[in-house]
């Protein structure tokens, strides 16, 4: 059984999977881990015995340091290797010995990793490794289940777990032979020679290799759990039930649920308890009006009795019968109350011929709430898109300062002390901008809690007396910083839990840069290239509010793309030269009886008033608070023979520092909304549902006609895609995307005259027309915006 993301899905059955990643401690209850091998990254140390040749620090190790060694067998007669003895050996304990072996496609030699016990009876648990594929052969006393080979990036981590069969043994050791064989599976070959790269040898008591810890001259405790409750009273490997919170080590455990459809594969771990279909409230962009509506999903799941196998690691020791006590969700939520903010994925696909998660369409959300089980035995999980992490109650800039004035100051003081003691070093830089009351001030020096070199009443504010215990708020200052970098700064430094992988910005501060432009780089380098910001923010302000203002005042859409799992920035402007524009029409795409066409009368704009340059940086949002006003108007549209009325849009542009940007903002808003915009809503089959908000699409439908009654292809900007029937039908809402006038881009030198150029180039590039404003064929001239 399987899924197929082929969007033309004739006769396939859609299915929805819901995944929750909840916290889970990596340790086994009551098992402490100590690395009993010494010099774990230095195989040249005398601790390691044997005749192999060791060259130290030849390669980058899994921890990105250059500490991996090359261990070579240079003898064509017999096998050589290195061996390290387990310290404080206990023959009655089960050990797991592990070592990292670098991947290599060489077929000249294959290494052997051995766990050996000796002293009374020699036992050799051997693993022959194929460094190219990670395949292994269990040799001598080993069976396959004694061995694990974990993919660790550029390395394989080979581990062997076994307890000695002879309690009289006195020695345990790890032995590695770099050239055990010349043919994988062909047996020992003493003539084989060659080197391998090794790093991170470890011996721990217990059945898992555990987190690796470096050792030098002594064994090192590297984690584990020291709880000692009686059997049956173990934790559930969650923070709520942890009995050794100091050692709690969080990883994620994925809980997977699926719709109870026929034909699910038995081998994939998922519980068929989803009731009905997920309920989506899809994200919707609102061009020019801030951040729009957040995406949300609700999934209803049935509760049921459960045997706890697979979710309670110690189910076998419990004194109660799990399926006879409580329910799945009742127990899961009691053990995992800290679910808010954890990842939630909704995956849709089709039953097909083979199962491949790569063929699923995956949407990422953040768990907002899990309610229930209710009286009907239902649990409802609500997920919101990750932009919920920007909510004003979760993230602010600047972060609220906790320092206060140690003593009152008058309106001319240029130094003061902070309180409580020590707050200076912990919260304040050595220079910057502060706000006390409604006065902003800069300071050039801070030593411990003493602030000096204060310049009072900056940024148009007034100097004033301030009392002891008045809050000294550190301000955030941007000076000539591009709007894209301001957003990157906010997300990286002021939003907890925002994953940097969600920001497609190669030059961003999360770095390192690869040199290949990502989407934000392209937007910054194009329409937003001149949108530099100079602003002092001296009052903790919600990140959502800040970014909403930025999108409105620098005219771009910013939205969570749930299937790309990235935060997108798209400038509100004519499409770039040769930008792809999809095409929908009545025959091939638009579903029957689904079209609704409306006009958004309130969205028309004939004048744009942009107030900018605050008089007092702490006051805004009203005309008298600004030095400057820029007005752009299309008075023709107000003519009595046309719309006949004014439609004024007022923008208090606190993030617009110059007339040039105010003019750009006003011009683009006026061009975008000079007419009453059409809004179209229609449905498409799953084959066409891979569109996203902000995508452009040309729609040809009988519902949009020209004066002669012919269908007229019209370009729309998609506002929302609502997957009404998962994997089957989506409803799309789109706003007409016409800009007043003809726009083009500066073309290459190879372009000819307008009349000689192709239609494609006429659409892509700008041409200079005669003074009449029209070309010889009557076409309108281009505009510069």
């Amino acid at each position: 059984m399987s899924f197929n993301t082929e969007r033309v899905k004739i006769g396939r059955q859609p299915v929805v999977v819901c995944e929750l990643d909840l916290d889970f401690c990596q340790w086994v209850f009551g098992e402490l881990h100590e690395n009993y091998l010494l010099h774990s990254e230095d195989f040249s140390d005398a601790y390691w015995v044997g005749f192999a040749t060791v060259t130290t620090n030849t390669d980058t190790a899994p921890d990105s340091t250059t500490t991996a060694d090359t261990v070579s067998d240079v003898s064509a007669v017999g096998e050589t290797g290195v061996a390290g003895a387990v310290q404080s050996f206990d023959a009655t304990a089960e050990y797991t010995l592990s070592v990292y072996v670098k991947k290599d496609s060489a077929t000249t030699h294959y290494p052997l990793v051995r766990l050996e016990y000796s002293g009374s009876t020699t036992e050799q648990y051997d693993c022959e490794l194929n460094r190219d594929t990670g395949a292994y052969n269990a040799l001598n006393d080993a069976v396959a289940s004694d061995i694990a080979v974990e993919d660790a990036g550029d390395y394989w981590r080979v581990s062997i777990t076994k307890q000695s069969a002879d309690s009289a043994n006195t020695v345990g050791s790890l032995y590695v032979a770099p050239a055990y064989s010349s043919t994988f599976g062909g047996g020992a070959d003493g003539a084989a020679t060659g080197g391998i790269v090794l790093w991170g040898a470890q011996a721990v008591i217990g059945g898992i290799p555990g987190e690796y810890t470096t050792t030098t001259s002594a064994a090192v405790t590297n984690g584990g759990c020291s709880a000692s409750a009686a059997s049956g009273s173990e934790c559930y490997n969650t923070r709520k039930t942890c009995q050794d919170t100091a050692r709690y080590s969080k990883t994620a455990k994925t809980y997977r649920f699926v719709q109870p459809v026929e034909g699910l594969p038995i081998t994939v771990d998922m519980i068929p308890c989803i009731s009905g279909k997920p309920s989506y409230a899809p994200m919707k962009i609102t061009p020019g009006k801030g951040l729009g509506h957040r995406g949300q999903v609700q999934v209803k799941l049935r509760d049921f009795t459960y045997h706890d196998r697979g979710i309670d690691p110690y189910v076998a020791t419990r004194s109660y019968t799990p399926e006879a006590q409580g329910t799945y969700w009742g127990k899961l939520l009691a053990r995992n109350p800290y679910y808010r903010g954890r990842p939630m994925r909704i995956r849709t696909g089709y039953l097909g011929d083979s199962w491949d998660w790569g063929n699923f369409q995956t949407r990422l959300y953040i768990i907002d709430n899990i309610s229930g089980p209710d009286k009907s035995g239902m649990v409802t999980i609500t997920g919101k898109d990750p932009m919920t992490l920007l909510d004003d109650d979760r993230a602010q800039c600047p972060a609220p300062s906790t320092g206060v004035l140690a003593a009152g100051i008058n309106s001319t003081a240029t130094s003061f002390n902070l309180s409580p003691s020590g707050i200076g070093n912990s919260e304040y830089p050595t220079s910057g901008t502060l706000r006390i009351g409604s006065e902003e001030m800069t300071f050039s020096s801070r030593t411990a809690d003493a602030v000096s070199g204060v310049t009072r009443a900056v940024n148009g504010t007034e100097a004033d007396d301030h009392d002891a215990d008045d809050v000294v708020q550190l301000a955030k200052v941007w000076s000539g910083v591009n709007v894209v970098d301001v957003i990157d700064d906010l997300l990286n430094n002021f939003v907890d839990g925002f994953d940097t992988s969600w920001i497609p910005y190669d030059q961003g501060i999360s770095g390192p840069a690869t040199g290949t432009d990502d989407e934000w780089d392209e937007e910054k380098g194009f329409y937003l290239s001149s949108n530099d910001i100079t602003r002092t923010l001296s009052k903790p302000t919600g990140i959502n509010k800040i970014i909403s203002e930025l999108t409105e005042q620098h005219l771009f859409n910013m939205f969570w793309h749930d299937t790309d799992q990235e935060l997108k920035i798209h400038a509100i402007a004519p499409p770039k030269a040769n930008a792809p524009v999809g095409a929908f029409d009545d025959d091939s795409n638009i579903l029957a009886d689904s079209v609704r066409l409306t006009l958004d009368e309130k969205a028309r704009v004939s004048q744009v008033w942009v107030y900018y340059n605050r008089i007092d940086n702490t006051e805004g949002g009203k005309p008298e608070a600004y030095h400057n006003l820029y007005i752009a108007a299309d008075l023709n549209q107000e003519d009595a023979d046309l719309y006949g009325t004014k439609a004024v849009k007022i923008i208090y542009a606190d993030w617009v520092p110059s007339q040039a940007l105010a003019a750009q903002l006003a011009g683009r808003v006026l061009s975008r909304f000079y007419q009453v915009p059409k809004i179209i809503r229609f449905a498409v089959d799953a084959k066409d549902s891979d569109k996203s908000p902000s995508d452009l699409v040309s729609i040809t439908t009988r519902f949009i006609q020209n004066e002669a009654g012919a269908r007229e292809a019209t370009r729309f900007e998609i506002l929302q895609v609502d997957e009404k029937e998962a994997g089957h039908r989506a409803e799309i809402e789109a706003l007409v995307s016409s800009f007043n006038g003809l726009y083009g881009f500066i073309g290459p030198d190879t372009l000819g005259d307008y009349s000689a150029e192709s239609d494609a180039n006429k659409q892509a590039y700008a041409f200079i027309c005669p003074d009449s404003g029209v070309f010889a064929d009557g076409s309108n001239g281009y505009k510069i915006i």
Partner: protein
Amino acid sequence: MPSIAYENYFTTGTVSVDSEDSDYLKENAYDWLTYPGDVWKPATSGTHYITVDMGSAVDADFWAVYGHDVDSIKLQYSSDNFAADINDVGTSVSPSGDEVIYKEFTSINARYWRLQVVKAASVSSIGLVMLGEKLTVPESVQVGFTPPTLTGGNDYMNSESEGGYFLGRSLIKNGRQFSLSFPLLTPSFIRDSWDLFIQHAEAKPFIFAWDYDNYPAEVAYCWTDKKIDVPNYHQPNFMQASLKVRARV
């Protein structure tokens, strides 16, 4: 004649396995649950066994597996816990898909039974194993009965364009549903056999083979749907029994 298989020695005997992934314990193989992931998995690929010791010799005449990912599977029995006495019951079964495996055989009396599962390239998975004595219903299915493995009965959602073209179709399969009705059962069968089956069916699933002799592959893993009808005297010397079931095949 129809067969109903509901007895399961794996739920009453002592079960052991030769290998077990700690996240997929052996108990998953006989807890009657067959959803994805509720499986027994050995820790490694290759040949493995799930064994049941009944304490003393018992009769069995069927075995079944539902929910599986194996190359082949075979039933064996022994009198010495497979030390030296190892006997196959029939030949290995190599399933082509995820169909219900159900095999009837001439009754055998043994204490130790095991299923040998083989998967060479990866670890095998077993959702449910069953072993026991089947119940043979002494009356054929009635006119109107639909064998559960026949296709059809699914729902569809079509996509048709504004211009009238076919754009796609989603198939909606939610499992099988059918009714079993036996109007001419003897009162003694009802009292001695059917009632015991109903006591099981009120709580747990079962396997139904409507005509194993002629259509051995047309079997279904069933559970009752809604209220089970109480048997009644349909004619003076015969009783009628029926039930509605949901099924996977």
